[in-house]
Structures are given as C-alpha cells and as structure tokens.
C-alpha cells in the first residue's frame, strides 16, 4: 500500500470526484478505464433535463434514453424544465429509485429564428413544439406523484419559477390531489416561488399565481378519511381562483393554525364574475359549523371581506385559540365585531382594524375595555367623547350619581402597542374643521364669527382649547393605566397649543415603565423632537421618537 498511488483506489477517486465540476468529471472519464468507472457515476448524480445557463452555446443536449436507463441507479438530483416537455417525457418514465430531489424550472428559451418553434437537438432527433407545450406540461404534473411514490428518498420537490407556470387541469388535479394534499405530498416542499407545496407540520403551503383556468379543489376530497393536515396556509395572488374556490381550499384544512389570505388581482375578472350575493352565500354555506378549532392567526388584510363574511369566519372558529386578527382595509363592522366579542374576546391579542370604515369608535373602546389579553391594537379614530360618554354611563349605572369618574378600567392592561388616532372632537357643537385647528387659531378669527364682529362669548377656539385639554387628560390618564405599553402611536388628535399642555400630557406617560417608542403625528412636529424627548426623560425605558 505504501508504493501504491491513492489514485489507484476507487474510493479515493470517488472522494476526489466529489469536489469536481461536471466538466472536470467528464475529462476524468476519458483518462482511463478505471477512472471512467469511478468518475462516471458521479456525473450521473445530477441529471439536467434543461438548459444549462452557463453553457457557451445555445443548443441543448440531452443524454440518450438508454444511457439514462443504464445510469438511473446513480441519479439523485433531477432538474428539468417544463419548456422541453415533449423531449423530456420519455425520461420521466425511467425507474430511478434513488431520487432525492426534483426541481422543475421554467426557463424562457431564447427565440430562435422562428418565433414559434424552437429546435432541440436530442441525439440527432429534432423536436419541434408549439402550443402543445401546455398539454405536455400537464402530463408532467401527472408524473410527479408517480415519482414521489417510487422514490422513497425523494424529499424535495420544488415546482415553481419566477414566471407564471401552468397549473394542472381540474381533471388532472382530481386524479392527483392526494399526492399534493395527502400523505405523499408531505415531501413536496416549497420555495418562495413555489406553485404548489404541501407540508406536514413544518412548512407552510403556499398556493400562488395560477394563471390558467379555474382550479377546482375536488369535492371528493372532503370526504376522504385523511384530511389535509396543513397548519399554515398562504393564499397569495391566486389570479384565476374565485373567492369561493379559495374558501373551499381553506375549508379543506380543519387543522389550520395560521391563515394568510392575500388579495388577488381583480384584473383577471375572477372575483368580479361572482356576484356579491353568491360570494356571501358560499361563505355562509361553507362555514356553517365550527370548522377550525385551532386557528390562531387570521390575516386577511386588504382582502376587502365584507362585514358578513368576517362574521361568518369568526363564527366558524372555535373559542379559545384565535389570537391574531388582521382585518385592515376590510368591511369589518358591526356583525363581525359582535362575533369577535362573543367568541374571541378572551383570547384575542392582536387586532388590526385600520382603515375599516365599519369600525366605530365605540367598538374600539369596548375592545379596550373587554379584551383582557389584548397586546396590540391598531385602528382608526377613537373618539374621546365616546370614552367619556361610556364612562359617564357606567358611573350613572352603578351609582346613579354624576360623579367625576376615575378612568374606567381598560381591561387590556397588558397592551403593548397602541396605534390609533384620537379624535378630540367634542360631542356636539363644533364642526370637525375647527377641531384640528393649529395653535395659530388662538390669534386668528374663527370661521364661525363674521369678520370684524366682537364676540361676547369666549371665542370658539378658546373653548375648544379648554375642551381639548380636558380630553387630553382623559386620554392620557387612560393610557397611563396601560403599564405594559411599549409603543404608542398617535397619528393625530392631540391638540396641544402650548408646550405646557404637552408637558402635562406627557407626565402621564412617565408612569409607563415599559414605554419605548412614541410615534406622533404631524401636529406634534412643531414642538420639536428634542423638546419632546426632554419632556419624556422621566419615562425610564423611553428610547425615542420615531417617524410616523
């Protein structure tokens, strides 16, 4: 062994080959018979049935079918391009057995002289293909489940690309749904660009970007004994799926813990084609009973679900687990609110109701007063007048007296982040225009008085000023009870015309030991960042002002 060269040992050749590129391996196979035997299997570890981006020439060369069959044993990684389908299909019927990964890519072939056909050189056979490509792609989809079944080590199937790929027809889908949703499908993983991926406990299922046709989730699926075990589902930019079909998909996943439902492009007309009534009906029909017992997170921001749809959704989620609801820019309103309060007020931690026209100030105050575990609230205007009114009502009820009320308890003492707008408008008299007056109003004439006249009553600005001071106190006293608050984001609404007023308000914030971030609207900028920071020196965790 001493005089022997390590290159005579096949296991050492194998190890060396591990570090070589394909091209170098090819050179090695031509060195001698021994070398060919050692290095050739390494070449076959990766089978590329696609264009190689770094190749110098434009032609594509595929190995012969017989070569693939002979070396199928060695193939562990398969990369293929759907653009070459007619040429590829024969290869996919080879019995590989040791596949570990499959990657399907869609490369845009560079156009040859003719714009509709591309010629591929496969051992001197020329394959032309045109629009039949789509059919072949469908067949490709059919092959993947078979490969999953035959290759037990196959753990990674990546199907996707940056450009829109075709989706299987409903017939195909029906035949192979099990592979993607059932037990076999657990080995189909996703990348950020994946078309269809499945998961079992670990990775999310992302359905995105279908471009062709309507994808019907087979109805038979709901009656099979093995339901879909997906825990995290993201529906993202599903162009051609109608809302009700998407809901159908969601319904197939009773173990869902986390749902992100992003809006689709309406341009495709998929959603418009359904009448609002039909959507509503399908929602109600679909979600009549408690479907989801474990749902923690419901994210349907920007999806523009209607109030009724939200309500249906919330009603179908079992009590106790729903922690996060993101309903920005939707029709969330009275009905949804009622459902939320009925079922989920004790579990909700994050609630985002920004830009929901149906959400009233009272609803928000009731949320603050009743949702004990609320940690994060984002919403639009909370009218301070409502806060006061509700306090008064409460006091009147319990004591029958009019007493100056201590701030009635907001139950959400664990609130960490509050992002709202406080509307300081008093209940009746003033029009909104005068409420958000700038400090200059102290000097200028109010629009309510005819120019030049003297006012015997205190000028509207002054009264408004006093009132705003009062409201500020109401608000800040209330906020000062939220001892866990870390982020306070007040977009608009605090009316402080002098620094003294502002200081007074901020004193209340000193009592918040956890307050780290304060985001104030434009109104406050005039006081200067440094001044504000100085006023908040006493707040021990305070880190600084942030940009709105």
């Amino acid at each position, binding site marked *: 062994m001493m005089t022997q*060269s390590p290159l005579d040992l096949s296991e050492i050749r194998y190890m060396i080959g591990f570090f070589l590129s*394909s091209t170098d391996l090819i*050179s090695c*196979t*031509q060195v*001698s018979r021994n070398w060919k035997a050692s290095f050739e299997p390494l070449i076959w570890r990766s089978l590329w049935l696609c264009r190689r981006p770094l190749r110098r020439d434009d032609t594509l060369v595929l190995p*012969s079918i017989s070569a693939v069959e002979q070396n199928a044993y060695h193939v*562990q990684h398969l990369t293929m391009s759907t653009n070459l389908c007619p040429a590829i299909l024969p290869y996919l019927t080879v019995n590989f057995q040791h596949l570990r990964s499959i990657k399907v890519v869609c490369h845009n072939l560079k156009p040859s002289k003719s714009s509709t056909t591309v010629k591929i050189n496969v051992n001197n056979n020329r394959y032309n293909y045109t629009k039949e490509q789509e059919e072949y792609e469908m067949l490709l989809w059919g092959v993947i489940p078979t490969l999953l079944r035959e290759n037990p080590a196959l753990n990674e199937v990546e199907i996707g690309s940056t450009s829109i790929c075709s989706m299987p027809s409903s017939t195909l889908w029906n035949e192979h749904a099990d592979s993607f949703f059932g037990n076999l499908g657990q080995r189909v993983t996703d990348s950020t660009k994946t078309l269809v991926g499945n998961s079992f406990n670990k990775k999310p299922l992302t359905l995105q970007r279908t471009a062709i046709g309507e994808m019907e989730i087979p109805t038979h699926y709901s009656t099979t004994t093995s339901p879909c075990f997906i825990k995290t589902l993201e529906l993202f930019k599903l162009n051609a799926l109608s809302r009700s079909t998407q809901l159908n998909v969601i319904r197939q996943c009773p173990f869902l813990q986390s749902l992100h439902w992003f809006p689709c492009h309406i341009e495709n007309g998929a959603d418009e084609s359904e009448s609002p009534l039909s959507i509503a009906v399908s929602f109600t029909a679909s979600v009549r009973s408690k479907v989801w017992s474990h749902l923690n997170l419901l994210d349907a921001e920007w999806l523009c679900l209607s109030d009724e749809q939200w309500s249906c959704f919330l009603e179908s989620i079992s009590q106790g687990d729903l922690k996060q609801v993101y309903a920005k820019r939707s029709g969330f309103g009275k009905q949804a609110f009622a459902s939320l309060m009925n079922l989920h007020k004790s579990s909700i931690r994050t609630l985002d109701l920004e830009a929901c026209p149906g959400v009233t100030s009272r609803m928000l105050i009731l949320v603050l007063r009743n949702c004990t575990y609320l940690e994060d609230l984002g919403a639009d205007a909370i009218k301070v007048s409502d806060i006061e009114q509700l306090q008064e009502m409460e006091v009147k009820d319990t004591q029958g007296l009019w007493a100056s009320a201590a701030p009635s308890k907001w139950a959400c003492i664990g609130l960490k982040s509050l992002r709202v707008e406080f509307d300081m408008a008093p209940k009746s008299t003033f029009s909104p225009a005068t409420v958000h007056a700038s400090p200059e109003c102290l000097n200028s004439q109010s629009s309510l008085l005819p120019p030049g006249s003297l006012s015997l009553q205190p000028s509207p600005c002054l009264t408004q000023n006093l009132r705003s001071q009062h409201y500020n106190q109401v608000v800040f006293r209330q906020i000062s009870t939220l001892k866990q608050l870390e982020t306070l984001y007040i977009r608009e609404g605090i009316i402080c015309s002098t620094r003294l007023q502002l200081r007074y308000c901020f004193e209340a914030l000193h009592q918040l030991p956890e307050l780290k971030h304060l985001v104030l609207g434009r109104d406050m900028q005039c006081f200067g960042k440094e001044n504000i920071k100085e006023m908040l020196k006493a707040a021990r965790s305070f880190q600084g002002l942030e940009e709105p």
Partner: protein
Amino acid sequence: MPVTLVSLDNENYVVDKEVAERSILIKNMLEDVGETDSPIPLPNVTSTVLKKVIEYCEHHRNDPIQVPDETDDPRKRSNDIEEWDMKFMQVDQEMLFEIILAANYLDIKPLLDVGCKTVANIIKGKTPEEIRKAFNIVNDFTPEEEAQIRKENEWAEDR
C-alpha cells in the same frame, strides 16, 4: 496523557492523546487496549509521512469533530481550503499521495478531504491528456472509444 506512535521504520513519536485521537483508527485502538503505555505500531506509515500527519493533527487538535454527511450538495466546493492547510499541502506529489494514503489508513477524515481537494485542484481545468501526464497514468482507450465517451457525456457539461 502521552501516546507513543511507532512508524514503519521504527521511529517513535510521542504525542498527546487528544492529538492522536484525531485518527479514528488510533482512537479505536486506544479504546480497545485501555489505559496503557505501550506504543502503537503503524506499519503502513513511514516516519516522514507520520511526522507530517502529526503536524496536521497538532494544528487541528481543537477542531470540532466532523459529522459525516454525504447528503445534499451534489458538488462540494474545493476552493475553501484554509490558508494553513494550503501551505501544509505544498509538497511534492509523492508526499501528497503518501499523506492521502496515510490519512485514509489512519481514518483522519479532515486530512483526507484536504488531500482530495488538493488533487481535485490539480485536475481542475485539465484535458484528459494533461491529467494523464500529471499523474502518470496509462491511457487504455482507443481514440474512438475516447471520442465516444466524450460524446456520451456531453449532456452533463456545464460550461
């Protein structure tokens, strides 16, 4: 605790147990034999090579033990040899081969990897004829056979 290693030509080398155990072969031997002072014979390794191997193990005595994996990566990279190792491997081809054989025999995977990577770097970019020249290998193909092989594997070329 010191361990004595004896080369083919009867040279003794005393090393720390920790250093010696970078070789899985020696590690297993020590486990089998138990606490003992008797030297370990390595009849397949000459003294010059053993000296080099010990030098490697001394330098890497604190490296974490590599977990064997032949998963994932269809192709490992050969350009991540650290600087000390690269200098260490600047030896003539005969010594390089001896080191590889010794590392294989003594089962020191990291050293074996470095050796193989070094050989791979020699092979990189060479034509078959250049490879044969570099390693003194006899060509047992006919020219037709050689051309046939090249054609058959053309599909795998990535450049």
